[in-house]
């Protein structure tokens, strides 16, 4: 059942080009969205019971012989799978109309599905080298998707992204090699045990540093962020949503969290490094976002800033901090995908991404304006939307841990966030309608459906935040915190 998360998108991606020959538009649309819907259904309805049975490791048999496939499903992976499939379905629906003028839809959906297969695989594996492999599956598909428009800007962004991403992959695989040499194993559990037995602070420090550089580049934390503000805005809108909403979180934050909390153990030094990286990203990127005129570039800088929040919460390492970080991960995935999709609607209808050129679009595009308002307020952390609760939890966790400086930085960044989202609202929507927008019409039905679903989720999760936390976030936190206690009790907190 779990294997479907990897196999189904890959198989469908493989047959899509053949189907594309028969029906270039309709069938690829239906098939791709059906895959996302099926995966979402499995994650939501079958997933919790699979964990409940204690199916930690899923062995596979083929012709009566056991295969070397080990997939682990715990609360954290299931939470990520559900978030990936949910946002994936919305992106798929949005692409139906939006990707119409890019042409060659079958290849587009094939790449999109491969990227999602890569992300799903990354979330499920228990082996260091496979983390690298699935990272690369998602990354190669995303290079092509960023360059999908084949314009000058897209190609330039894609090339820069590819170069930095290749370097980060190299750092990751070098670190994996060193770990393999040190411990003689690649499995998470075995490596974790071996590292504790070896007690080699220098060697494991080098590995941790290489992992921070590698995954920091993938997650675009501030010293390593140069590629993101180019790559995310240049991609087609649904891809921007997938990259900003999911890919940086899965290939950056998920991998960092899984490796540092479950394998290395979060030592105080490591925790401080992660928190400083998070806080710097959060504040600096918020200032950088203020100066942007292009709506998608502003959203891209905002992504770096919000990723900073998540890393800050998870890096703190207390159960409440991890809870807040994971909850913010979900909220940011929903709201940022929503905003990037809306930026695509605006670009399609008005033909511009420049905030100074759009004036008073709210009369012409009421649904887009309303959903953008919801998304902006959610990320800016205005109650009762979901973003408010996750930011509140992170700040409370910081105060509880007596990290007042970081708490202050988090509050400052959230004020800045509110400020630049108000700039978007005022410039793009609230003014008097411009004469030149006479012929602008609201986005097509499926595109608005996707954004309305995301906006409703932002509101519903905000109102029923306790229910969301207890059903989805707490199992995820417990999966991480369980390992955390084991590791802390065995090495002792230095």
């Amino acid at each position, binding site marked *: 059942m779990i294997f479907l998360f*990897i*196999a189904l998108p*890959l198989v469908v*991606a*493989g047959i899509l*080009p053949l189907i594309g020959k028969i029906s270039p538009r309709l069938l690829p649309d239906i098939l791709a969205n059906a895959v996302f819907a099926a995966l979402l259904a499995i994650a939501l309805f079958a997933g919790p019971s699979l964990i409940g049975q204690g199916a930690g490791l899923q062995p*596979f048999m083929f012709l009566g*012989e056991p*295969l*070397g*496939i*080990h997939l682990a499903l715990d609360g954290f992976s299931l939470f990520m799978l559900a978030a990936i499939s949910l946002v994936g379905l919305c992106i798929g629906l949005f692409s139906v109309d939006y990707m119409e*003028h*890019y*042409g*060659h839809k079958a*290849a*587009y959906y*094939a*790449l999109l599905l*491969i*990227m999602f*297969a*890569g992300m799903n*695989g990354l979330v499920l*594996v228990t*082996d260091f*080298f*496979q983390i690298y*492999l*699935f990272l*690369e*599956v998602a990354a*190669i*598909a995303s*290079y*092509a*998707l960023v*360059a*999908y428009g*084949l314009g000058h800007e897209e190609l330039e962004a894609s090339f820069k992204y590819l170069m930095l991403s290749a370097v980060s992959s190299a750092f990751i695989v070098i670190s994996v090699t060193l770990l393999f*040499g*040190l*411990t*003689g*194993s690649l499995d998470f559990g075995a490596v974790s045990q*071996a590292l504790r*037995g*070896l007690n*080699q602070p*220098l*060697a494991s420090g080098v590995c941790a540093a290489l992992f921070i550089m590698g995954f920091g580049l993938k997650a675009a934390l501030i010293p390593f962020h140069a590629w993101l503000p180019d790559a995310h805005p240049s991609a087609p809108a649904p891809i921007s949503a997938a990259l900003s909403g999911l890919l940086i979180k899965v290939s950056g934050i998920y991998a960092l969290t899984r490796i540092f909390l479950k394998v290395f153990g979060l030592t105080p030094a490591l925790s401080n490094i992660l928190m400083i990286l998070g806080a710097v990203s959060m504040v600096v990127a918020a200032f950088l976002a203020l100066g942007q005129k292009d709506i998608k570039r502003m959203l891209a800088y905002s992504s770096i800033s919000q990723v900073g929040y998540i890393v800050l919460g998870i890096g703190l390492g207390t159960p409440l901090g991890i809870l807040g970080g994971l909850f913010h991960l979900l909220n940011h995935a929903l709201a940022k995908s929503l905003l990037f999709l809306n930026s695509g609607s605006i670009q399609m209808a008005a033909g511009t991404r420049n905030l100074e050129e759009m004036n008073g679009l709210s009369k012409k595009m009421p649904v887009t304006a309303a959903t953008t308002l919801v998304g902006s307020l959610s990320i800016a952390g205005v109650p009762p939307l979901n973003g408010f609760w996750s930011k509140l939890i992170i700040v409370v966790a910081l105060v509880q841990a007596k990290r007042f400086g970081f708490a202050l930085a988090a509050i400052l960044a959230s004020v800045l966030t509110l400020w630049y989202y108000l700039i978007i609202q005022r410039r793009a929507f609230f003014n008097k309608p411009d004469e030149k927008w006479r012929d602008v019409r609201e986005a097509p039905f499926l595109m608005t459906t996707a954004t309305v679903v995301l906006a409703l989720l932002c509101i519903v999760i905000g109102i029923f935040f306790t229910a969301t936390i207890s059903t989805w976030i707490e199992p995820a936190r417990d999966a991480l915190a369980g390992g955390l206690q084991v590791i802390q009790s065995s090495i002792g907190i230095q």
Partner: protein
Amino acid sequence: MMALQIGLLCGLVVFSLLAVLLRDILKAAISLAVASLLLGILFFRLDAPYAGAFEISVVAGLITVLFVVTIALTKAEGGVHESRAAAWIFPLFFVVFLVIDFLVMRRLIGQVASLPAPAEAGTFGQVLWKGRTFDLIAQVGVIFAGVFAVLALFRKRSKHE
């Protein structure tokens, strides 16, 4: 025995440096292929025949062909002028790095404890197909991604553009 391997390693480094520093891009690509060839021979010496064969046939062969095709397709008018400074200051940085590298490695001699790997049974094929089955599935994903990426990047432009 060890002398031959160190000779191969030095040759590998020299040809890699040539690949980085040579002005003519075609010569650089060929230096890279020679470096791969030496690396492949080293793998045979290290008792890794499958990896050696892959390194020679795929990296020294296929990737070099891809590079040469790209160079032929992008014969730029005038070419690109690399900065002279980059080539001039390289020896300085390189020597500094070599010294640091040497000192660090000497410092580490005898310091790094490591666990022995569990003994491996069977042949390469058994390890690859049974032990690392999931890698093969991931490889399928990577190959799909590469193929579709190339297809998408070389597709015919739509009427819209």
